[in-house]
């Protein structure tokens, strides 16, 4: 006998992601899924955002890492409520992990939940976490070819943040090419050029996030 299923393979994840999104909407919370390579500057950008969003949106953070709590400690040092997820080897976060981690946070006391995903440009592309906005980071030291080499992660993202822009004079990174490739992959996604430790370009990104709050 044959069973016709015709169902999405990640249906369970997608359903749970929708439930997460409903929870975030009810709390009027903007959920951001921050993705990028290891070392692209996700935590450093987050530190700069804490500063830029001061008095505008109250942040809460979920840190996803394979092991350790270094990033969570950096958030705690800034007084931001944070939950650390250790994936024990898994290369991405999924909606189940977010549902569990969110229980450890007081969502009503936050306006924006940033989920810092595991550093990875491949696997993180396939899993909806229930976010409103997926922010993809690319540091100029990684090279402008990453958009062409890892299109899926850029295509599904709502904004591109190009980090470490202070290093542009020292690296071979063609900004025009990167911006054009992002326009091709995600025509509506803005591109922010930042140097997070100096807060350069971060205010524009903060403004854009504030406007996206549900």
């Amino acid at each position, binding site marked *: *006998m*044959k*069973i*016709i*299923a*015709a*169902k*999405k*393979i*990640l*249906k*369970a*994840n997608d359903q749970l992601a929708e439930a997460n999104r409903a929870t975030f909407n009810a709390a009027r919370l903007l959920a951001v899924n921050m993705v990028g390579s290891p070392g692209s500057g996700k935590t450093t950008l987050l530190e700069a955002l804490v500063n830029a969003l001061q008095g505008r949106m109250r942040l809460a953070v979920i840190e996803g890492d394979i092991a350790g709590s270094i990033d969570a400690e950096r958030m705690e040092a800034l007084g931001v409520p944070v939950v650390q997820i250790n994936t024990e080897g*898994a*290369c*991405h976060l*999924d909606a189940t992990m977010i549902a569990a981690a969110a229980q450890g946070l007081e969502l009503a006391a936050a306006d924006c939940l940033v989920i810092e995903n595991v550093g990875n440009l*491949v*696997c993180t*592309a*396939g*899993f909806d976490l229930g976010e409103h906005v997926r922010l993809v980071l690319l540091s100029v030291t990684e090279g402008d070819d990453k958009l062409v080499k890892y299109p*899926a*992660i850029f*295509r599904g993202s709502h904004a591109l943040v190009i980090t470490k822009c202070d290093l542009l004079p020292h690296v071979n990174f063609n900004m025009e090419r990167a911006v054009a490739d992002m326009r*091709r*992959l995600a025509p509506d996604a803005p591109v922010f050029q930042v140097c997070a430790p100096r807060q350069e370009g971060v205010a524009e990104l903060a403004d854009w996030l504030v406007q996206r709050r549900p």
Partner: protein
Amino acid sequence: MHEVAIVDALIAQVEEEVRRAGVSGKVVRLDLSIGRLSGVSVDAIRFALELLAPGTIVESAQVEIRQPAAVVCCAACDHRAEVEQIPVRCPRCGSRELTIEGGREMLLESIELEESPS
């Protein structure tokens, strides 16, 4: 290697579908559709199946994987074509008003069982 997580979800889904259909027996065949723009490697799916299938409901299933291409549709000239990469402009009239159909799906299409005589 998110293919391992995908195959893990697939096996759970096959178990659920079979339970819901209220049948018992050996799963002999699975039909999947994995779009060419889904970002999933079919080789890695097969490797993950070798790893995870033993001892589960799908352990003796033959797995057929269809890989549908994406179809680009032009709103200006009604041109439709299968593409490997998403183009910026319509290859026929140059318009930017394109929509993409398919190519990103990951579906469990059907499950075939050999019913055990009761």
